[in-house]
């Protein structure tokens, strides 16, 4: 299939345990003809062993032994499919509450979230929790799929009342783009093909929505941020004086001859060349991986950031973040964690837990200061050196951090700069 000009869309699924996420993905893959015959044969065989008539669509996604045995999704799995219009990456994330951290993992880079609601149960706590996380992570597009419409006689009224419920609670959240689709993942209504059972629905099937979402503006193209990953110093003929700064443009656009500032030092210079591999280009934009050379010999190393002279991030050692605690070990007060921010690494301590958020009611709790697995809280961070930061709302790349516990080397928390 030739799709050379096509974009990549990353989406994640959210919803409660039995809302049918795996079935929906299985249906999407199956109806878009992305399932190979040997995979189909293997699943048919396993379905039969489990005593299931026909094909258990959910089995296309659960890959680990324990998942198949228990019939649940434990960890994020990534799935791929391509249509003549787009290439898709699905982060298939678990619905179980104890795996919320994996949902966050899958959602952090998504352009869109597909939130599943069981038509029989309507909006429940899990729906709110996942939608809240999606809004916190600033996922640009939300598609609400009211599933199992076959079990409520394809009722337009039921659908409308769920839309109303969702609108009511989500109006308190920062979500830019929400769409609603009544579906039956099991039977394939409004997933890839338009449903004949719900002629009252005027919108498009889910796949069509995913194919046509406008995603070019999901990346910040205004504020130019270039975190340096590594410095290229080739020891070879013809490149004796070459010093290239290699990295991936986090946001914005860079052009040859533009005046730039190097942070945190504050030195200024001009862009001499921009390279993508061996090819020299006049301009480059996020999310391109490039190598930049400058007119002047400036001391730059990994963790530094090249920005436009007249548009700079904040340099700060103390700032607030919305923190999602991801680890079994709770927050230890006064512990020095390693903070990772773009390609920069420093030490950090949590000076104060300002409030915890009840992800079911969105209420703030200023009394309880203990952070344990899956908690979300606003905290005050202090770092050993100044970081070049933007707010997460403005910039998903330069507004995000993780904390690493040096005693276990594990990632214990993910944060969004307020």
């Amino acid at each position, binding site marked *: 299939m030739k799709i050379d000009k096509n974009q*990549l869309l990353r989406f994640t699924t959210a919803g409660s345990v039995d809302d049918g996420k795996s079935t929906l993905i299985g249906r999407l893959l199956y109806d878009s003809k992305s399932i190979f015959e040997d995979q189909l044969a293997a699943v048919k065989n396993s379905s039969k062993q489990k005593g299931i008539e026909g094909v258990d669509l959910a089995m296309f996604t659960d890959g680990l032994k324990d998942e198949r045995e228990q019939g649940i999704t434990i960890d994020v799995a990534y799935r791929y499919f391509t249509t003549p219009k787009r290439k898709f990456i699905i982060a298939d994330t678990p619905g179980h509450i104890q795996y919320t951290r994996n949902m966050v993992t899958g959602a952090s880079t998504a352009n869109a979230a597909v939130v599943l609601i069981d038509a029989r149960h309507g909006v429940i706590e899990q729906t709110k929790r996942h939608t809240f996380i999606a809004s916190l992570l600033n996922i640009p597009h939300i598609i609400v799929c009211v599933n199992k419409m076959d079990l409520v006689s394809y009722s337009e009224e039921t659908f409308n009342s769920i839309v109303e419920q969702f609108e009511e609670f989500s109006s308190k959240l920062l979500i830019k783009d929400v769409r609603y689709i009544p579906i039956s993942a099991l039977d394939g209504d409004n997933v890839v093909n338009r449903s004949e059972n719900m002629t009252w629905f005027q919108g498009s099937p889910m796949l069509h929505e995913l194919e046509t979402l406008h995603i070019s503006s999901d990346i910040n193209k205004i504020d130019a941020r270039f975190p340096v990953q590594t410095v290229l110093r080739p020891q070879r003929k013809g490149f004796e004086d070459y010093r290239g700064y290699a990295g991936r443009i986090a946001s914005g656009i860079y052009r040859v001859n533009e005046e730039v500032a190097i942070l945190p030092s504050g030195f200024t210079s001009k862009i001499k060349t921009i390279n993508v591999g061996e090819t020299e280009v006049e301009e480059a934009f996020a999310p391109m991986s490039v190598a930049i050379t400058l007119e002047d010999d400036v001391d730059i190393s990994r963790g530094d950031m090249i920005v436009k002279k007249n548009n700079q991030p904040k340099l700060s050692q103390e700032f607030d973040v919305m923190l999602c605690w991801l680890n079994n070990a709770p927050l230890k007060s006064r512990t020095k964690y390693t903070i990772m921010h773009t390609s920069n690494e420093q030490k950090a301590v949590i000076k104060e837990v300002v409030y915890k958020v009840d992800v079911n009611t969105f209420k703030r709790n200023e009394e309880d200061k203990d952070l344990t697995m899956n908690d979300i809280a606003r905290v005050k961070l202090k770092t050993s050196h100044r970081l070049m930061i933007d707010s997460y709302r403005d910039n998903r790349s330069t507004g995000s951090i*993780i904390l690493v516990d040096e005693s276990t080397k594990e990632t214990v928390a993910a944060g969004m700069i307020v």
Partner: protein
Amino acid sequence: MSTYYLNYLEELESEAIFILREVWGQFQNPVILFSGGKDSILITHLAKKAFHPAKIPFALMHVDTGHNFPEAIQFRDDLAKQLGVNLIVGSVQESIDKGRVTEEKGKNATRNALQITTLLDSLEEHKVDCAIGGGRRDEEKARAKERFFSHRDEFGQWDPKNQRPELWNLLNGKYFEGEHFRAFPISNWTEMDVWNYLTKEKIEIPSLYLAHQRDVVKRNGSWIPNSEFLKLEPNEEIVSKKIRFRTLGDITITGGIESDADTMEKIVEEVSTMRETERGNRSDDKRSETAMEDRKKDGYF
């Protein structure tokens, strides 16, 4: 370039280059696991782009089972020489000779699982703290669960239930002495993406991927190539067929497919109409439903 967005291949390329540079930024002694197959060739090509005009800063490490396609070995040696990078070869035969592993017996014996010991021994011997691999999440259901930076404990084991969360582009490559990481820069590529990219970039690959007349024998539904390691069963006979290979593993277990695709463009065309996964002809994956997961838990890449 007035619209300022990347197409999917450019975005995958950019992501892979980012990860390769992150490996270099975070680890002391990384290597590229190089088998001579298309995925490791692609990784090596991406590494060339990531560090241009500097040389690829990684050695290539090949775990040699001794049951190779001779052409793949020739290709490996030529590429390492052309790039001017160090080539480390870990030999399964040596591991057998030293008594580190015991050869499987029986009709379907392979050296696939034996690679694990040789790989882990080689990583330890050369003090490698990150092994970059060409694994893709679309290949196999256990691989679909893989992170870009994948932690391995001191026994080389993968624990799928305790993976580090991986958010945004923030990759945590911290480890204790004796542990190591595997990095998978092309996690998000599919077989089709790989072929589209190899074709677009005109990257050279072993001609085993192209259809030629070859001597083969039908076994378990696949065309297994004739080689010095092949022991014919009484009911089997060698025939000549126009064959190409979708994957290159051990010569003893890699089944070819009947095909007329003798150019890259024709391969792209053919792959787009394939109704079977590329590993469908790999007998190592057919051993049980969780064969790959079980191997990976033991240290397989």
